[in-house]
C-alpha cells in the first residue's frame, strides 16, 4: 500500500519550497533517511542548509526511524531561537 505524508516546514525550508507543508509519497517501512533523500531530490536547494533534522511526533528522530502514515513529521533546519 502506498500513501503519502505531509511534512511540516519551517524557517528556511519553508522559504525554499514556498510552502508550509509538502506532501511526500511514503511506502510502508520508509525511514527518516529515505524521506530526507526524497525531499532533497525534489528541492535540491535543501542541500544548501547547514544541517537538516527530522522530527517525528514532536521528537527529534534518527535517520533509521520508521515513519508511519499517521505520524506528524517536520523538517527542522538549524534552530536560532533566543
Amino acid at each position: 500500500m502506498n500513501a503519502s505524508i505531509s511534512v511540516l516546514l519551517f524557517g528556511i525550508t519553508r522559504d525554499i519550497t514556498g510552502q508550509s507543508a509538502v506532501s511526500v509519497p511514503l511506502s510502508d517501512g520508509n525511514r527518516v533517511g529515505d524521506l530526507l533523500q526524497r525531499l532533497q531530490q525534489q528541492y535540491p536547494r535543501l542541500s544548501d542548509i547547514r544541517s537538516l533534522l527530522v522530527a517525528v511526533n514532536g521528537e527529534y528522530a534518527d535517520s533509521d526511524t520508521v515513519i508511519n502514515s499517521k505520524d506528524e513529521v517536520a523538517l527542522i533546519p538549524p534552530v536560532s531561537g533566543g
Partner: protein
Amino acid sequence: MIAITTDPIDVASALKLLQADEAGAIDLFLGVVRDKTQERSVDHLEYEAYDRMAISEMRKIVDEANRRWKLLRCVVIHRKGTLRIGEIAVLIGVATPHRADAFDATRYVIDTIKQTVPIWKKEIFSDGEVWVNATP
C-alpha cells in the same frame, strides 16, 4: 511556566511567578533584539516556532535544570512574530535559595534553548534578509 507568545513579554508578571519564600536569589535573563549583526544594521526580526515541539523541548530543558539544581521556580517565555529593536525575544527566570544555582541554571537553560528548541529567526536588513545559522 513555559510559554510561546506573540504578545510583548511582561517582565513584571514573570517576576511575580518567580516569588517563593525560600528564594534568596532570582536570575532573570532577557534576550533582546539588537540593532546590528556583524556590522549589518538590522531593521527587525521575524521569529517562527514549531510550537508544539518547542514547548516540549523547553519542558525537557527545564526538567533537566530542575534535576541538576533543584529550582524553586522557573519561567521561560519565548516570543514569536515580528520583533523590533529593543524588544524582548526570550525571558528566562530562575529562583533558587542561593545565587550560584540561579546563575548556572539560567545560563544552562538559555544555552540549551539555542541548541535544541525549534524556533527560528530571520534578520531583515534594509537590503535583504537571512535565516540565522541556516546556511554555512
